[in-house]
């Protein structure tokens, strides 16, 4: 019997991956989780979590969830429409190839450079704004909305829409034209097709993609910080404020607690995403 026992080595291939995830995801998460329960003296405490209820952290939480939800929904709708236009067009056409490769690039564009690109073009001293203003279109007549959450939402959509195109296009490609022909030959109209065939098939992956967009803008930091530097309006900035304050508002424990709060919110979004993903992949098989 002993001789028949074989040492299983098939797990060896996953070692680099597990080591990588361990060092860059698992260990930091544990450090954050432990740190969130320690006070400045290093003993167990729940006081950091009390900090989550101070007014500016609550405001930042509401802001961040709202901003992420709005940019996810708008990004998902506009991105889905664009993806639909591509999916129904020529599969080898120039338009499709151009949009897909542009989306691949633009979905990764973010941070200080993106924020500054907006400031330099449509900001109050940007050349596009100055041109529009000279021609009678003053879109800052009622205030500089680019420097509040509306401006941030606009900048986020710049990478949200292309990301939606990338993640939603495969689902649209899975829809077979024959299904529509079948629906029509059975006497169904366009509305029936969308309501009973394409809609139910696409809805889970649409919602899943929307949740992905939510998580994407939820974790964005550099873009927000470059555009709205005052008052830490989003959660990631609150964390940075409590870590790097050089004027003595250094509260690493609270920063950990906020990070844990963000992880919890993203975990909820990700669980929802994977549930919906499972449902839609069953349909598309």
């Amino acid at each position, binding site marked *: 019997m002993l001789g028949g026992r074989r040492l299983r080595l098939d797990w060896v291939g996953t070692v680099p991956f597990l080591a990588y995830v361990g060092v860059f995801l698992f260990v930091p998460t544990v450090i954050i989780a432990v740190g969130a329960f320690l006070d400045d003296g290093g003993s167990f405490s729940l006081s950091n979590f009390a900090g989550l209820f101070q*007014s*500016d952290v609550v*405001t930042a939480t509401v802001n961040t969830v709202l901003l992420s939800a709005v940019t996810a929904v708008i990004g998902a709708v506009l991105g889905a429409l664009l993806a639909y236009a591509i999916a129904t067009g020529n599969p080898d056409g120039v338009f499709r190839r151009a949009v897909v490769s542009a989306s691949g690039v633009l979905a990764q564009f973010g941070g200080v450079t993106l924020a*500054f690109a907006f*400031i*330099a073009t449509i*900001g*109050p*001293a*940007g050349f596009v704004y100055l041109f529009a203003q000279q021609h009678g279109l003053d879109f*800052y007549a009622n*205030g*500089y909305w680019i*420097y509040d959450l509306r401006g941030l939402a606009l900048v986020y959509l710049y990478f949200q829409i292309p990301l939606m195109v990338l993640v939603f296009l495969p689902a649209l490609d899975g829809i077979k034209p024959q299904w529509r022909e079948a629906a029509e030959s059975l006497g169904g109209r366009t509305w029936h097709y969308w309501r009973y065939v394409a809609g139910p098939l696409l809805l889970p992956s649409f919602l899943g993609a929307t949740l992905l967009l939510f998580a994407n803008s939820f974790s964005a930091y550099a873009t927000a910080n*470059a*555009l*709205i*530097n*005052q*008052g*830490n*309006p989003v959660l990631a900035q609150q964390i*940075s*404020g409590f870590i*790097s*304050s*050089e*004027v*003595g*508002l250094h509260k690493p424990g609270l920063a950990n607690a906020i990070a844990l709060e963000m992880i919890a919110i993203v975990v909820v979004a990700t669980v929802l995403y994977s549930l919906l993903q499972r449902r839609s992949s069953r349909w598309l098989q």
Partner: protein
Amino acid sequence: MKLGSLSRRLGVAVVAFVLLAACGSAPSGNSSSACSESTAKTATSASACGGMSALVAAANAEGKLNVIALPPDWANYGAIISGFQAKYPSIKITSDNPNGSSQDEVDAVTHLGTSSRAPDVLDIGMAVALANTSLFAPYKVATWGDILDSQKEPTGLWFQDYGGFMSIGYDSSKVPGGTISSVDDLMGSGFKGKVALNGDPTKANAALNGVMMINLAKGGSLDDISKGVDFFHQLRQAKNFVPIQATTATVKNGTTPVVLDWDYLSAAHGKDVSTWKVFVPSNAILGGYYAQAVSKTAPHPAAARLWEEYLYSDEGQNLWLKGLARPVRQAAMQQSGKIDAAAAAALPPVNGTPVFLSADQATAAKTYLSTHWAAAIA
């Protein structure tokens, strides 16, 4: 490898020889003889080491000096290091981690201890200086009397070196009338979307001092920053306040044509924007200075003290001035006529008596800001 170890051994031999020579001549009592290492370690002034020439001799015997976090383009440190090198050619300067922060400097002292790589001297922000005095050795430079009492620790644990005043820098081609003569001007309708700080005052020291300067100009005191916060609240409501951090890029492209920042940093924008002007309100002259400190565990105690003497000599002070930083002895040197007049004339004019935030006042300000700032500018 062999060459390396040979030269290292040679180096050790040379140092040993010089040390022997120095020790050998010590008992003669001659003023040019070096003071002993243990004397240098605790010397609180050059005379405690037996006078300047004895300090120079001891520093030459050590042959090395470790400095840290001194960017060559910051306050003219590149020229200062080569100036010291030219004056004392037998002392080799090792400039470590030039872009480090004040906290990095203190961390290096704690981590490297008495090892030969540890920093000898520090140039740090006041918050870090006050929090780490147990790491410093007291020392008073020959020109100690020229430093105002408010700018030094009485025993010489730290003493301020250079700094500047909080100012309003602006592009004169983009503000109404081409000039700003009072803080209240900023509230005018011609300043819509133009006024910015250098960071968030709950995070960045320069921004905190920006709010404090406005606070003083509006009749507030160093102990209570609330009038400054109120002003920014009104500035925000008037849509004049821009919530982005002013940087070289935002100044250059015109997004932040009015910036509250230290005058020596603001004056540097003149390189990019030829119409840039810097204004220090005479009713709110708020100073901010860095400080020098000698490490208690300095591996080269005599060279460390000699470096301080050089920095606080007329030559060292004028070199800082050329880097647009105001040296701490500036007023005294103006009186004695030793100041580099051309370099002084390049600084933004300041008329009046400067004030400085104490540690307690800075704490009070940051505590108030932490609960009121976000709401004030929302």
